[in-house]
């Protein structure tokens, strides 16, 4: 994969295939510590313990359309190549959490890429699924939650392609600020941190 954000899109699609109604995506750029960590958590049907040990083996897949599963083995290979690792934890019936860690400045680490494109693709293509997205760069943070958007606005709002287009632009703008270390008063209001329920 050319971008970390494409790995994230791919892993999130696994959760959707597993019947998740909510997917949480966390990107932590701990630049000061030289670590990039991504977490994708879903509330889908989960993976049995017999299977989870072999899951990054490309020959493990429940798909019937092709005999090899690629996504998780690609992610693990990418993380390992960058002095990192991937971890898959799951509770059957409750959900799955995929974590990958990379050395931030490793020469082989793919760029994070177009996270706004990945998030809005997920939202547009899966209207019945909610997405929570948290992205931090050192101590700066950006977050969004489609459950809150749906509460604020009518349900059809996120189904409008024009909204998706502008939403992508807005997220890009926020992420640029995050990247460049600017805090913006208008967009930098204090959040309440209530979606910060990460397990690890």
């Amino acid at each position, binding site marked *: 994969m050319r971008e970390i954000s494409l790995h994230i*899109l791919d892993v999130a699609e696994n959760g959707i295939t597993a019947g998740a109604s909510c997917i949480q995506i966390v990107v932590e750029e701990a630049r000061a510590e030289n670590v990039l960590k991504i977490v994708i958590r879903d509330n889908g049907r989960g993976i049995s313990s017999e299977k989870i040990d072999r899951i990054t083996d490309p020959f493990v897949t429940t798909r019937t359309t092709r005999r090899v599963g690629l996504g998780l083995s690609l992610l693990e290979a990418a993380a390992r190549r960058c002095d990192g690792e991937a971890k898959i934890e799951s509770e059957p019936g409750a959900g799955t959490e995929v974590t990958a860690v990379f050395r931030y400045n490793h020469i082989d680490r793919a760029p994070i890429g177009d996270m706004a494109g990945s998030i809005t693709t997920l939202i547009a293509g899966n209207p019945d699924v909610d997405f929570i997205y948290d992205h931090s760069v050192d101590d700066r943070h950006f977050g969004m939650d489609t459950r809150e958007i749906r509460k604020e606005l009518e349900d059809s709002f996120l189904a409008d392609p024009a909204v998706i287009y502008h939403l992508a632009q807005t997220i890009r703008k926020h992420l640029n600020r995050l990247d460049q270390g600017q805090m913006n008063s208008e967009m930098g209001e204090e*959040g309440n941190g209530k979606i910060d329920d990460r397990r690890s």
Partner: protein
Amino acid sequence: MAKLTIEDLKRIKEKTAKKISVRDGTATAKITVHMGTCGIAAGAREVMGVLMEELTNSGRDDIRVVNSGCIGMCSSEPNVTVEIEGGEPIVYQLINSNKMRQIFKRHVLQGEIQTDFALAKI
């Protein structure tokens, strides 16, 4: 801690308000972008972006765009399936932004199947 704010949402709403008619009518066309690993690696996300843009420009509210998993034809990804009401689903292969725009304008809006890019009827 920055957040996507209500102000952000209001601004998006203002920008899009004129274009939204009520999107609860029945769909007459469905476009499926296949989002398996191979599709994603080959550019399916960019194809989704193009579709959002074309759909916005068309002003049509009876066209649905959805994602689905891999259909097992990795070497011809990205694959996109177009289904017009009353017609058979057409699977298009090796789609990029330009082909997607052409398929949207000619097939989805005008009903002309773009046989050059079509893989099969399923």
